[in-house]
């Protein structure tokens, strides 16, 4: 039963997204532009004396950030598409359990993440000779990035179902904020002290560090950073589920859920 419900959410997203050029571009073209533009920049900087590690440093960050982006969008769009279509009330009067909703939309996020990993990973190999797949087991960091992104998406969803669609813009804003704090393009050591403390509380910071370490940048950090990233991601995900559960209940009390 729950699997049928989950398949409903996956089916809806897949059908709608596959008809929208903008969404196809977000998964296929957007990462390509990032890989190309930042790859060329990294190549230029490394050739200018920064050394070959620059390529590793930038590509690991870019790939993680793109995976975070599509994962968070997928789960957030579970609610956003309903709000846009004025169909939220129909989804929640359908026999939709919270678990079905989360699993279904997150599955679409996982599917998008795998596509993005393939596109960015293969392009990086072909165009710049950088192979992220050499991280082997430590590619599991990307799964924890997906888990964290899903948790934050549930928090955004919670704001939308309790306060209304004015919080929808967080879907796009939050990915930028996460990028700044996670040290996608720079080591977090260069950030001011208080900002560093925030960075350390963001799981993607650790996942990126672990992935970079697995590929040869500060190798000793691969395992400890993987563990910290995993624990934090699961904690954020659990928090997201709890907040979303509360938000749906709250939305039924305030009636916001019936607006869309």
């Amino acid at each position, binding site marked *: *039963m729950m699997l*049928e*419900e989950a*398949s*409903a959410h996956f*089916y*809806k997203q897949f*059908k*709608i997204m596959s*008809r*929208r050029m903008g969404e196809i571009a977000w998964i296929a073209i957007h990462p390509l532009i990032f890989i190309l533009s930042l790859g060329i920049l990294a190549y230029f900087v490394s050739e200018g004396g920064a050394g070959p590690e620059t390529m590793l440093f930038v590509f690991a960050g870019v790939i993680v950030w793109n995976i975070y982006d599509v994962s968070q969008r997928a789960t957030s769009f579970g609610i956003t*598409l309903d709000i846009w*279509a*004025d*169909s939220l*009330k*129909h*989804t*929640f*009067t*359908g*026999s*939709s*359990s919270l678990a*079905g909703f989360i699993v279904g939309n997150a599955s679409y996020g996982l599917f998008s993440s795998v596509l993005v990993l393939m596109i960015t990973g293969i392009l990086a190999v072909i165009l710049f000779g950088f192979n992220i797949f050499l991280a082997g087991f430590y590619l599991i960091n990307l799964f924890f990035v997906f888990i964290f992104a899903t948790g934050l998406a549930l928090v955004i969803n919670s704001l939308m179902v309790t306060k209304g669609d004015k919080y929808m813009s967080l879907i796009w804003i939050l990915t930028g904020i996460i990028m700044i704090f996670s040290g996608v393009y720079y080591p977090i050591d260069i950030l001011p002290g208080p900002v560093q403390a925030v960075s350390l509380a963001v799981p993607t910071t650790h996942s990126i560090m672990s992935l970079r370490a697995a590929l040869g940048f500060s190798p000793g950090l691969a395992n400890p950073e993987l563990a910290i990233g995993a624990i934090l991601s699961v904690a954020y995900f659990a928090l997201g589920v709890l907040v979303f559960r509360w938000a749906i*209940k709250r939305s*039924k*009390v*305030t*009636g916001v*859920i*019936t607006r869309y």
Partner: protein
Amino acid sequence: MLAGLIPHAAEPASLINRLSQNILMDAIEVSGIRKAFREGGETTHALRGIDLRIRSGQAFGLLGPNGAGKTTLIYILSTLVTPTSGTARVLGYDVTGESNEIKKRIGICMGGTHFYWDLKPREILNYFGRLYGLNSSARKKNIDRLIRKLGIHRFEDKEFGMLSTGMRQKVAVAKSLLNDPEVLFLDEPTAGLDVEVALDVRNFILDIIQERNMTVLLTSHQMGEVEQMCRRIAIINQGRLVNEGDIRDIRDSLRIPDVIHLYLDRYSGLGFLNKMPGVTHHCVSDGLFITADSAGSVINPVLAALKRNRFTVKDMEIRKPSLEEVFLTLVGRTTPLPKRYGKVT
């Protein structure tokens, strides 16, 4: 034997007991339901203590002016909104504690429904069929049947955003019936539809209600629609139940007069009618209107008196009070008839 044929029927006696209880039970029980919405420091009392019981298999009409609380009540019963206080049960399940059990067994169709603009009707129904947990064969069977019966196949290839209001509403009706619901909530299902499509939709719903012995709660501003589909109604106004019962009983209890409309050869010199017993009022406009508690008891004396006074009756029409007049009387707006026509002199 029975235990082998019917799943979970280890004790035939208890099964029969349960089945008979289901047949006799109230499908919807509402007791002291209140709902207040708070926004920006202001509180709106949508429902102020509603009590209602709807028998299983009954089609029940819920009437009330805009903002009376009809839709809020449907939202509560379909578990979309939590009541502030009071209890409500659908098919024996509590709306707050057992919402998943309820959602599996109900269908809901609202007027002016929107779905995903990029999806085609079959895809929308596929999505909701999956949400209801229907497996692929049950889903296909139900979707094919509804698409054929509602004539959706004629616009199946168009995306929802390209459909007319009537086509969209047919998809909404199909969606509400996908899971073979035991209770169907219809919130102004024909609002905004042209006469022909409204008739199609109404007839389809009527057929399916009779075929499946479904319990239906209908809200509508189309009094004719409510009269056609329901025998019992409740009227709510400003969040309170004003009246509830059989349409005929409510009409009789209000003593809204019958109206006899007579077309005569002339309309002067009718003063003699004022002296007739049982004729409570009579007035003239483009015809002679006589209002009486019971048209049957006065019609013969009136016709005889007209004949005696050499009036020719060209045509005649007897009209019972409409549901609209019942509704207006109950929500505190008087029957418009006496004001509409001048008194006979």
